[in-house]
Structure formats: C-alpha cells, structure tokens
C-alpha cells in the first residue's frame, strides 16, 4: 500500500468526525502557540540584551581593575604589570588611564567649563581605535585633546546660570562657544592643600590639538579633557600626589603610594582570544572584567532560561496530546469493524498502524502549523502593543530597538519537532491497539 493510498484513507477517516478532529487540532495548536510565545520572550529579551552589548565597541577588551598578591592583598596596577601585559601573546595593546585627582575649571577666551580630566597613553588609545573628529594627537606635555561634547559645556564667564537657557530649556545661541576649539589655549588652576588646610594654586596652560570622535553608544556625552602622562607628572610634581589630588596622600584612605593606573584595558586581536586572556589573568590573580565573558555568562543564563521556558511550553503540548490520544483511541474503537474487515481480507498490521500514525501525525502537524502562525501574530502584536501599553500605563519609554518577543527559525523547528514527537507518541498506542484488533470480534462473527 503506497503513501498516497494511506493518505486517502486518512482523509476519509478525518471527514467522518470533523468536530472532534477540529477540537483536537485546536488543542494542539494552542499548546504549540503557548510553547512558542513563552519561549519567544526568552529569545526576544536575549536578542535585545545581546544587541545592546554588541553595540559597544569594547568587545575585544579585558578590563583590569586590580591585583591580588600571594598574601591576598589588593594592589594597584603599576608599570611593572603593564610591561607584563604587553609581553602576553594575545594582547594587541594595553590602554591605561588615570583620573586627575581634581576637576579643574578650564578657561578659554571668556568661556569656562569644569571637566573631568583623564591622563591616557595616546599610542595605545590609537591602537585600540580612538579616533579624532578633528586635529591631531598630543606629542608634548602642554597639548591636550578634548571630548566631542567639551565645547558644548563651555559657558560664558560673565553670564548667570539662569540666563543660559531659554524657556524651552535650550541653550541660548549667544551663550554657546561658537569658535573652533582647536588651537585654543585652555587655562586651568591646580590646587594643593598643606597639613594646615592652606591652599596653594598654580596655573597651567595647554593647547587643544584635537577633538575625539563622537561616542558610538546612544546618548553618551564625552566632555572630558584627555591629557598626556607627561602633564599628569607635572601636576603630580606640584601636588605631591600620584593622581594630582590636592590632598596629602595620608589624608585619603586607600590612595596608592606609588605610580599606578586607575583603569587598565587590554585589547586582544580577536574576540575569541578574550576568554582565554581573561582566564589566564584571573588565574594570575588579576581582577578582570570583559564584555565577552559577560556575554558568555549571559548566553548561558538565557540558554538555561529558554530551555526552561520550552520545557514549560512542552507541558502544554503534553496536555494537548491527551486529546490526541483520546481522539485516536475513539477512532480505533469506532473503526474496529472496518479494521477487522481490512485485516480479514489481507491488510498487514503494519499498514494499519501506519495509517493511524499518519492520522495522528497529521493532526499534530496541522496543530503545529496553525499554532506557529498564531504565535507569530501574538509575537508581532506583543512587540507592537507592549511599548504602547507600558508608555500609557507606567509612562515609561522602552529603549529603541527593544524586542519583547522573538521567534527565530530554530525555535520554530524545536516547537514543531516537539509537537510532532509528542503527537506521534500519543498516537502510537492507539495505532498499536488497532493492529491488535481481533478480526472475529471486530466482525462479530460466530465462532
């Protein structure tokens, strides 16, 4: 008996009890929809978070924020460590940074701005991808580059803060620094306090030689001033502290006693090297952090979460499978006389089993397809409607590109496969029962 003929039998059988078949398909479709929609939340949130992480340009980066020596004591990262990092195989470059221990007030022409000042190693920054929107990198101690938004922070010295903005809270045109900052001289004071809290001030003058490119992350402002290590050393020589802090070392707890770095970032050649490097450095006693490691942990967490959601969804399909079992058992019972006749005239039990398995598989497949289509609609509606609802009810705006539900192709395959396997299993017992029907009993013949 070929497949076409078996399929014809299945169609004939399905037509005999349309309502029952419809209800069974409906239950299966609901189970499949539940599974897909439930798991799609896991996939959606995972995708959104991954997308967010991938948007950062520091995927190849391993951040080092300290060292624990053999005695278990915390140590700062010094030049000795930097040398070690630079000798490592997978390391492309080592960025190091120090925050100036005070936030100076920079003055240019009649404008001023208080900005965070960072001392960086420019060659490493360049290698790691730091680019300038305009100008060049500093080559001398009295040269600096400024962040993309630094000029926006400059305000006229003789204007009250209240007069800076219009009623719509937009900066007034005349208060903006409209000239090109490149080539301008910034003047700033560095303070130092002695033991008696008496302040001593010295003035530095630096030339702006470059503007850093706009940050790629959405909504990030860069109004920092980037100085060279040479300038930081000059400032430190005046303040007597490594970081240019105005207070004596002893006054501040946990201040490094030797030259060290606040932030150190190791850049690898490839993304794959990040994990190995992180593991190696952690084993050596460094405190490390990398987005790639976080991503791996995030992936693992979401994989477990998605598996859990699929498992819960499978329970819905298992419940639906009870309906299939019931429908198929009733079908076998109702068709027992027909099965008996078929067996009597020479139908192989295997053929009868295949017909019933085909029938339950068809119900499962139809349910899975309808369920998938409905799941797509629900997923679409949720992604469309949820931001609107959250905005209306909680007055919270979701981040751009936020996806609550996502149905990748692999989820579809998993759901349809689970549905088919469950329905075939639930249909296999009635199918076996059909093969065991006694011919004489079924035909009600007198023995």
């Amino acid at each position, binding site marked *: 008996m070929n497949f076409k003929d078996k399929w014809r039998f299945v169609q004939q059988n399905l037509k005999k009890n349309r309502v029952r078949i419809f209800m069974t398909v409906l239950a299966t479709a609901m189970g499949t929809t539940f599974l897909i929609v439930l798991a799609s939340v896991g996939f959606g949130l995972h995708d959104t978070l991954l997308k967010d992480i991938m948007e950062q340009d520091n995927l190849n980066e391993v951040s080092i924020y300290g060292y624990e020596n053999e005695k278990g004591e915390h140590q700062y990262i010094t030049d000795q460590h930097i040398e070690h990092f630079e000798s490592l195989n997978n390391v492309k470059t080592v960025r190091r940074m120090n925050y100036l221990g005070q936030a100076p007030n920079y003055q240019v022409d009649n404008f001023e701005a208080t900005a965070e000042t960072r001392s960086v190693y420019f060659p490493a920054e360049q290698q790691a991808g730091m680019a300038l929107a305009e100008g060049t990198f500093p080559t001398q101690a009295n040269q600096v580059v400024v962040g993309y938004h630094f000029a926006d922070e400059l305000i006229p010295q003789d204007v009250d803060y209240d007069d800076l903005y219009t009623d719509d809270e937009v900066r007034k045109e005349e208060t903006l620094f409209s000239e090109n900052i490149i080539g301008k001289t910034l003047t700033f004071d560095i303070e130092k306090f002695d033991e008696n809290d008496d302040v001593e001030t010295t003035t530095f003058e630096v030339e702006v030689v470059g503007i850093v490119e706009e940050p790629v992350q959405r909504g990030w402002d860069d109004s920092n001033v980037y100085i060279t290590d040479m300038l930081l050393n000059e400032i430190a020589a005046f303040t007597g502290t490594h970081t240019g802090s105005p207070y004596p070392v002893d006054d501040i707890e946990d201040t490094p006693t030797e030259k060290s770095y606040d932030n150190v970032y190791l850049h690898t050649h490839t993304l794959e090297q990040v994990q190995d490097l992180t593991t190696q450095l952690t084993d050596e006693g460094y405190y490390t952090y990398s987005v790639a490691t976080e991503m791996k942990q995030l992936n693992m967490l979401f994989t477990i979460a998605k598996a859990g959601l699929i498992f819960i969804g499978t329970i819905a399909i298992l419940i639906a499978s009870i309906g299939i079992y019931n429908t198929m058992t009733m079908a076998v019972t109702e068709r027992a006389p027909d099965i008996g006749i*078929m067996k*009597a*005239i*020479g*139908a*192989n039990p295997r053929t009868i089993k295949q017909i019933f398995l085909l029938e339950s598989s068809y119900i499962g497949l139809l349910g899975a397809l309808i369920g998938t289509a409905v799941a797509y609609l629900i997923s679409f509606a949720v992604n469309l409607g949820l931001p609107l609802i959250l905005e209306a009810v909680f007055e919270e705006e979701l981040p751009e590109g936020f996806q609550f539900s996502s149905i990748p192709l692999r989820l579809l395959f998993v759901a349809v496969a689970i549905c088919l396997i469950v329905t075939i299993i639930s249909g296999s017992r009635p199918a076996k029962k059909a093969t065991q029907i006694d011919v004489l009993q079924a035909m009600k*013949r007198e*023995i």
Partner: protein
Amino acid sequence: MITIKHLSHHFVMGKKGETKLPVLHDLSFSVNKGEVVSIIGRSGSGKSTLLNLISGFIHPTSGEITINGTDVTGFSEAEFADFRLNQIGFIFQNFQLIPSMTAYQNIELPLILKGINENERKKITEQTLERVGLSQYPNHYPGELSGGQQQRVSIARALVLNPPIILADEPTGSLDSETEASLLEFIRQLNQDLNITFLIITHDQEVARIGSRTLEIQDGHLIKGGNSR
C-alpha cells in the same frame, strides 16, 4: 489445494485459562484444486471454527494446515495477512462490506492493499464489477444495495485479486431463496469459468448440494467425507 492433518482445537476459558473447551477433534481431509467442497454441520458443530483456522483468524491447538503447498500452521499474523491477500478470497454471511465505502471502493480495497497502481486498479475493478453484474452501481454504498447485490459486491471483492481459493461462510445465510439460487448458480459458474476452489460452510442441506463433495462435522468430529476417526 487444502490439506488438513490431525487438526484439533480447544478454546481456553476462565480468567486464568483453567477451563479448556474442545471444539475440533483430530480432523484430516483434503480439498483438490477446482473442487467445490461443502462443509455441513449444525450450529455449534465447529464448522465455522474450522474455517477460521484455515483462514488464520485463530491458531490451532494441534495439527497441520497446508494451503496451495504452503504449511501455514506456524504463520505469524503479518505472514498470514499477506498469504490471505494473495491466496484466499472471502465471502461472509453478513457480507462484511465497509459501510462508508462505495461498492467500487469496497471491491478496490484488496487491490489497494496489494499496492497496485491506480490505472490498473480502475481497469480491474470495473471488469470485476461487470462480472458480478453491478456495473450500474459503482457509487452506491452498501446501505443503498439489496442483500443479493451486497453479496455480489462481497464476491467481487473476493474475486478481484484472482485468488486460487475462496472460503465462504454461510454465503446465502442472509438472502431470500430466490437470490440464494441465483447466487449459488453464480458460484458454480465462477468455479467452472475460473477453476477457483470453493470451500463453503453451511448448515443448509440445499446449499451444500452445490458442492461436488460434502464433509459433515458433528460435535467437532468429521463424520462424513474425511479421514476422521
């Protein structure tokens, strides 16, 4: 064609199978090719059990059944199903047609089970419908046909694969006397035209006369026409 040797059968009764009910006792006989053999006996004599054993619907307690040179005694259910499809046609007392299928579809069923292609099936089914005189009723469902017509559909289904043997269990049991006579004449004709071996079970002496030989069973013993003790 059919050889039965020392065939005995008992039914097992009771929840634990503690009671055995003997039905057939050491039956031995043979049916030659092209013969029409009637098996006669009263109700409960064991004649239907004999037919069910030959058909493979039940397995004998002891003895040997050989059909067309093949010892079928130890056949599995699947083996017997294939054997029935290829070697044996059945005519039942109450026709045993599938009510949801038309006359055409009922007749076509053995051809489908054998895996014959659609064009060939159509040709054979139409020829068989014509042979049994039902070419006017291909799309009628069994419920729309008379008893005689239903039995002709049943005969057509038995004939459609050209089996060498047809087993008939009370073939005229549900028919009036006029239809009965016509049907018996039709069986005789088939035997003459196609040289098909018929084994007919009946309790009716008139029907039994169609056979060239009559075997009689009484209380599970073959008392006439065989080699029973």
